C-alpha cells in the first residue's frame, strides 16, 4: 500500500535523477550547466510535498495522524523526517549553486557531477525516514557512494585522488564495522525494525555482544559525522576534494550521519542509553577538543574548516551525550538542541565554504597567508567571511550564538557532574575556537596584501550562482541571529521524534 503523498519527495528526487541523466545525454558540452539547473529545479520541487505534508491538516489535505507509517514500520514520514529532508534538499540546492561556476571552469564531466550530488541527496532523504537497519544502511551507502566519486573529481590532481582514496577506505571500513554491529544487534534481538529492537533490547544492556553491536553501530555513524577518533579522513578529504564537494560533505553528508545516529539512538537503542550515553560523551569531548586544538595550527582555510567541522560535530553531540541522565523532558530538550544546532551549522558552514570558493577564485589559493589584506581588494567577500566565521565562533548577533545557547541550556538542564564537566569543556572550546576564526578574519582585514596576490583577474565578478548561494546563507545566518525562531521552529517540530521514544 503506497502512500504517494508521503513518498512524493523521494519520487520527485528519483525523477530528477532520471531527468538529469537524460539531460546530460542530450545537452552539448557548453550547455552542461543545465544539468545543474535540472537538479536544482528537481530538488526545489521536492520541497513542495514536504510543505504540504508538514502542514497537511492546516491545508485541509488530510486529517488525523500526521505520522505516516509504511512498509511494516520500516519507513516513516513524520515531522522529524520532513524537517531533515528539507535540510538535505536545501543543502543539495546550495551545494549545486556553489558548484556551477567552479565545475564549469574545470570543464569536464559537469553533468555527472550534478547527478552524483542529487544521488547522494537522495540517499540522505531516504535516511531521514528509515526506521529499520537495512533501510538506514542502504540510505547511508547511497549518501557515501556518490560522495566517494565526487571527492576524487579532479582526476589529474593527486591530492584529489588521495582525498578520494582516504575517504573511500575509511568509509568502507566503517561501513563494515557498522554492518558487523548491525548483525550482532539483529542476532541478539531477532528484529530489524527500530521499534522491534527497542522492545527486545531492554534486558540486553549487560550482554557483551550487544554492547559491542551498539558501539560498532555508533562507530559507523561516528565516521559519517567525523567525530574523533573517527575523523582523520575528514580534513584530508576536504582539502583534496573540490571545495563545493567539501562543503557538501561537511554539511549534507554529516547531517545524514547525525540523522542516522539520532534515529538509531533515540528509537532503536533508547532502552540502553546507558551504553551510548557515555560513549557519546567521550566522543563529544574528544571531538571538540582535538578538532579545535588541531584547527589552531592550520594554514589552509579548507583544512581549517575541516577541523572546525570536527569540532562542531562535537558541539552537536554535546546535548545528547547527556541523554542517559535525562528524564523524558530532558531528552526532548537535548534532541531539540542537537537539531537546532545542526540546522544553524548547516547554513553557516555552507556559507563559509561558499566564501572560500569565492575568495579562492580571487587569490588563487586557500592558504591563509595568501588571504592577507583581502578586505582591501575584495571588501564584500571579506565581510561575508567575517560574518560566517564569527557565526561559527558563536558571536552574537549571528545565528551561531543561538545554536551554542540552546546547546548549553540543554546540557546544563541535565543533572550531575558529568553534564557540568561537558559544559565546561564546551565553554573552553568555544573560546579556543574563537582564536582561529578570529585569526582568519584578522588576516583578511588587517594584514598587508602579499605581492603574489591578488590574481590578475581578481576583479572578475563572482559566478552568479555562487552569489545566490552566498546571499541565501548569509541572509539566513544574519536573520536567524536576530530572530532565531525561523530555524528553531523546525528544531521544535523535529522534536516529535523524541516524544515517540
Amino acid at each position, binding site marked *: 500500500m503506497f502512500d504517494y503523498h508521503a513518498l512524493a519527495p523521494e519520487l520527485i528526487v528519483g525523477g530528477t535523477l532520471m531527468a538529469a541523466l537524460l539531460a546530460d545525454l542530450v545537452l552539448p558540452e557548453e550547455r552542461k550547466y543545465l544539468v545543474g539547473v535540472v537538479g536544482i529545479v528537481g530538488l526545489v520541487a521536492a520541497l513542495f510535498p514536504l510543505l504540504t505534508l508538514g502542514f497537511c491538516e492546516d491545508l485541509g489535505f488530510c486529517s488525523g495522524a500526521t505520522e505516516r507509517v509504511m512498509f511494516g514500520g520500516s519507513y516513516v514520514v513524520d515531522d522529524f523526517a520532513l524537517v531533515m529532508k528539507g535540510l538535505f534538499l536545501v543543502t543539495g540546492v546550495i551545494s549545486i549553486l556553489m558548484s556551477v561556476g567552479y565545475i564549469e571552469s574545470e570543464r569536464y564531466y559537469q553533468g555527472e557531477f550534478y547527478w552524483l550530488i542529487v544521488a547522494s541527496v537522495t540517499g540522505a532523504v531516504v535516511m531521514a525516514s528509515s526506521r529499520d537497519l537495512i533501510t538506514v544502511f*542502504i540510505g547511508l551507502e547511497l549518501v557515501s557512494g556518490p560522495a*566517494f566519486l565526487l571527492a*576524487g573529481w579532479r582526476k589529474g590532481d593527486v591530492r584529489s*585522488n588521495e582525498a*578520494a*582514496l582516504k575517504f*573511500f577506505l575509511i568509509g568502507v*571500513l566503517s561501513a563494515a564495522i557498522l554492518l558487523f554491529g548491525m548483525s550482532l544487534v*539483529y542476532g541478539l534481538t531477532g528484529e530489524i525494525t527500530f521499534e522491534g529492537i527497542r522492545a527486545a533490547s531492554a534486558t540486553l544492556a549487560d550482554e557483551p555482544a550487544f554492547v559491542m553491536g551498539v558501539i560498532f553501530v555508533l562507530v559507523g555513524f561516528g565516521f559519517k559525522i567525523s567525530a574523533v577518533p573517527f575523523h582523520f579522513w575528514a*580534513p584530508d578529504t576536504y582539502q583534496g576534494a573540490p571545495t563545493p564537494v567539501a562543503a557538501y560533505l561537511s554539511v549534507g553528508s554529516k547531517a545524514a550521519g547525525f540523522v542516522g545516529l539520532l534515529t538509531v539512538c533515540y528509537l532503536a537503542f533508547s532502552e540502553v542509553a546507558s551504553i551510548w550515553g557515555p560513549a557519546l560523551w567521550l566522543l563529544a569531548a574528544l571531538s571538540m577538543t582535538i578538532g579545535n586544538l588541531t584547527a589552531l595550527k592550520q594554514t589552509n582555510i579548507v583544512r581549517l574548516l575541516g577541523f572546525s567541522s570536527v569540532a562542531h560535530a562535537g558541539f552537536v553531540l554535546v546535548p545528547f551525550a547527556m541523554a542517559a541522565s535525562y528524564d523524558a523532558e530532558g531528552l526532548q530538550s537535548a534532541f531539540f538542541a542537537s537539531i537546532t544546532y545542526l540546522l544553524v551549522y548547516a547554513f553557516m558552514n555552507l556559507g563559509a565554504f561558499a566564501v572560500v570558493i569565492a575568495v579562492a577564485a580571487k587569490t588563487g589559493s586557500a592558504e591563509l597567508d595568501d588571504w592577507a589584506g583581502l578586505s582591501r581588494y575584495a571588501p564584500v567577500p571579506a565581510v561575508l567571511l567575517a560574518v560566517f566565521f564569527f557565526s561559527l565562533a558563536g558571536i552574537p548577533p549571528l545565528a551561531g550564538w543561538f545554536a551554542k545557547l540552546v546547546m548549553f541550556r540543554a546540557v546544563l538542564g541535565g543533572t550531575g557532574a558529568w553534564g557540568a564537566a561537558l559544559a565546561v569543556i564546551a565553554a573552553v572550546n568555544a573560546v579556543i575556537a574563537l582564536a582561529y576564526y578570529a585569526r582568519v578574519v584578522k588576516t583578511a582585514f588587517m594584514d598587508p596584501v602579499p605581492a603574489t596576490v591578488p590574481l590578475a583577474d581578481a576583479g572578475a565578478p563572482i559566478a552568479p550562482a555562487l552569489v545566490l548561494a552566498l546571499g541565501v546563507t548569509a541572509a539566513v545566518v544574519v536573520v536567524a541571529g536576530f530572530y532565531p525562531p525561523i530555524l528553531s521552529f523546525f528544531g521544535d517540530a523535529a522534536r516529535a521524534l523524541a516524544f515517540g521514544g
Partner: protein
Amino acid sequence: MIVNQFLVLGALLFSIGVYGVLVRRNAVLVLLSIELMLAAVNINLVAFGAFVDDAAAAGQVFALFVITVAAAEVGIGLAIVVLIFRNRSSANVDELDLMKW
C-alpha cells in the same frame, strides 16, 4: 541449532579483514580485506537469520543487500585505485600522505 561456530568463524574472518586493512600496502589488497570483513558480516547475518527464524527472513535479505552494496563499493574503489595508479604508477596506500597535520 548451534550458532556459535558460525559466529566464531565470522569474528575470525572479520579480524583477518581488519588485519589486512591495517597492514597490507597495496590498495587492491586492502580492498579485498574489506571484502573479507563484509563476508564475515554476511556469515553472521545468515547464521543469525537461520537462528532467529523470523518470518520475513530479514537476515538473509540483509545479506543480499550487503552483497549488492559491496559490489557497488568495490566498483567505486577500484575506479579510485586505477586513477591513483595512473597518476603515481603505484597503488601503495602508505605512500599517500601529501595532506597531513
